[in-house]
């Protein structure tokens, strides 16, 4: 790829990266200035006439830049020293207030997260993918696909990711994937809807578990009834519970039945194992010692709901059905909730900008001298050593350019946050640019604070400004 800033003649060496701030070569324009006036042929308009022509050429640009860019900078700095209505001079009051305001501090913190995370991840991703694409023949197609999101507006990207981040796993793709993966690797709770019947042997524990209402000693039996399970939700292996608890408990064991205390079609007495009622298999049962904490024995119920807690020393025990039996099914990640919103929006930003990093770094890779890499290979260096010791150091200038460009860009991110974060979490997701908007126009209507925020944004990009001017002066004169 050749740089846009190079003229048709002479072309830049193929594959040189397009620097975001193309350094002009020692300018012909500058050279001309030194000799220009003396070589003016006769019969041409005088210096004065040519000056007028020159001013006509630059006037439209200077007028617009002056009125709509330079004047606003000066105006904003001045305005930021006045209060909300602009009547009272408050000095730096707005700035001190910025750092005392919780919402603004959240915005500053989030902007810091953005600046630390997004450019680094993108540069790293661009580097890895750039190196990997060198190994495939369809590299151009791959880069096109990754670059495509750059054509999409932040609004459209925001709508796309609002769809993808939907909480309901039936509608949001990311949670559909998350729950799918989760359920593959973790056992689902068997009875999420089950609850104890009041005054029928079980009381709810503090953590979602259920405890037996009375204690029991080894050699006794306990029947624990649950309700709230639809007959259709019973596991296929479940068997009738009637008679399951008839076995006599040994002296060191506690026996009992966990069953669904509900007979389809009616009949039966609450709290008693009646014919037609089903056992609840697969439930974890624990015997708690008198201190209420030590688990003395653990068992799992059989298909008919019976369990036997064995090996118990003499004493009184409470039987517990731990919360794991009843936990709600995993519902995925709350992407658009207050905790995850900033990472979620950064994710959408990565989708848009990865192509940029890959293409720029890929161009840099293509311009690396082949012989250095070949020499290293012949010397027996492996791919990782070549990457670490040769590719990355030689690419450092390109990586810096990508990184700096992204930092400037990330600082001003607005639309994506404004669109993806739902109203209630807008404040949790705020960055400096959205905060500036809310304070100035979105209800706050405090133009003094708004100006202070805009000036703060400007101050943050001043290092980049200095960098640009220096770089230009070095190469241009």
């Amino acid at each position, binding site marked *: 790829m050749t740089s846009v800033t190079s003229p048709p*003649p002479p072309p830049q060496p193929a594959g040189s990266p397009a620097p975001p701030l193309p350094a002009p070569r020692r300018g012909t324009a500058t050279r*001309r200035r030194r000799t220009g006036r003396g070589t003016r042929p006769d019969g041409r308009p005088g210096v004065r006439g040519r000056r007028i022509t020159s001013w006509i050429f*630059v006037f439209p*640009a200077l007028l617009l830049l002056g009125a*709509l860019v330079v004047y606003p900078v000066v105006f904003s700095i001045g305005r930021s020293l006045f209060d909300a209505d602009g009547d009272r001079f408050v000095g730096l009051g707005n700035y001190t207030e910025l750092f005392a305001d919780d919402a603004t501090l959240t915005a500053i913190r989030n902007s810091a997260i953005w600046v630390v995370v997004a450019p680094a991840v993108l540069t790293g991703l661009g580097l890895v993918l750039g190196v990997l694409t060198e190994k495939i023949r369809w590299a151009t197609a791959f880069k096109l696909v990754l670059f495509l999101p750059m054509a999409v507006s932040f609004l*459209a990207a925001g709508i796309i990711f609002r769809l993808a981040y939907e909480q309901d796993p039936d509608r949001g793709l990311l949670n559909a994937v998350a729950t799918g993966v989760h359920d593959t690797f973790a056992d689902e709770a068997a009875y999420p809807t089950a609850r104890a019947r009041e005054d029928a042997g079980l009381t709810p524990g503090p953590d979602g578990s259920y405890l037996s209402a009375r204690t029991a000693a080894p050699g006794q039996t306990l029947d624990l009834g649950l309700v709230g399970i639809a007959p259709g939700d019973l596991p296929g292996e479940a068997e009738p519970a009637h008679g399951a608890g008839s076995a006599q408990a040994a002296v060191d064991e506690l026996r009992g039945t966990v069953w669904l205390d509900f007979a389809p079609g009616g009949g039966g007495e609450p709290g008693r194992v009646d014919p037609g009622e089903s056992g609840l298999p697969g439930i974890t049962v624990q015997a708690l010692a008198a201190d209420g904490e030590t688990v003395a024995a653990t068992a799992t119920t059989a298909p008919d709901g019976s369990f036997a807690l064995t090996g118990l020393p003499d004493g009184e025990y409470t039987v517990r059905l731990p919360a794991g039996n009843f936990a709600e099914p995993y519902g995925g990640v709350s992407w658009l909730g207050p905790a995850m919103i900033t990472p979620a929006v950064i994710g959408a930003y990565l989708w848009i900008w990865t192509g940029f990093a890959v293409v720029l770094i890929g161009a840099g890779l293509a311009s690396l001298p082949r012989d250095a890499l070949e020499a290293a290979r012949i010397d027996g260096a492996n791919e990782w050593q070549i990457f670490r010791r040769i590719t990355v150091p030689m690419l450092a200038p390109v990586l810096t350019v990508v990184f700096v460009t992204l930092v400037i860009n990330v600082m001003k991110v607005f639309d994506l946050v404004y669109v993806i974060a739902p109203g209630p979490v807008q404040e949790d997701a705020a960055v400096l640019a959205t905060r500036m908007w809310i304070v100035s126009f979105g209800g706050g209507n405090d133009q003094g604070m708004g100006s202070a925020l805009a000036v703060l944004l400007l101050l943050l990009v001043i290092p980049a400004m200095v960098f640009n001017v220096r770089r230009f002066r070095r190469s241009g004169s």
Partner: protein
Amino acid sequence: MSPAARLTGLLTSGAVRIALLLIALVWLTPLAGLLFSSLRTEQDNQASGWWTALTEPRRLSFDNYTALLDNSGITQALGNTVLIAVPATVLVVIIAALAGYAFAWLEFPGRDWIFLLVVALLVVPVQIGLLPVAELFGELGLFGTIPGVVLFHVAYGLPFAVFLLRNYFAEIPREMLEAARLDGGNEWRIFGQLVLPLGRPALASLAIFQFLWVWNDMLVALLFADADSQPLTVALQSEMRQFGSNIGVLAPGAFLSLVIPVIVFFAFQRHFVQGVMAGSVK
């Protein structure tokens, strides 16, 4: 290379290929999701994810799009987007080309200092202009109008545009310009007949970058456009409040808004990539 090393090499290159293929698929999925969502009925979108459409493609229809194009608010907003993006692009290219030529080849006092100022303005965030320009436009009667939005975009597009074109024009061989001057051409003819044709690649990249920038903008129009002059992005943004129940408008609207940029993308791939690359300093 030993057979074992060759086998490892083959396996890793296979793994790399599969990994990259998967990444490409992941990158295309969001766009596919938007497209499928836009083709499904509101009820279907409420009930299930767009990927279920893959198994029952017959439930897809263009009904959302016909409804969208019957919605006068949306069609007007689409028209406004064109009315904002095209003049904002043309004006930036013309004004920046004039200024770029002057900064590169004409003489006037303070030229180099003024150009340094332009370089400094490259990274000025648009946020700094929102409040002051809103007040200025209010006094000039430009607030809430299409020309106001256009002028703001032109002004904030200019630093980069002037910078890009000045550097490009500066590389034109001096002999060509001197020869044209000796032939008696005045600056306007040299500009129109020599500089502009030679600068076509840079002008094209600039035009594409600026067009996309303005077409995709929401922030500037959110403030400077009123209900009659708002572009598509702002019109759709106002529907975001009831996101869940408005997917039938939002999904096809968003897809409509990205059709033109994507066409531009595929039609002018090279200029597009270069334009975005060069313009990313903004």
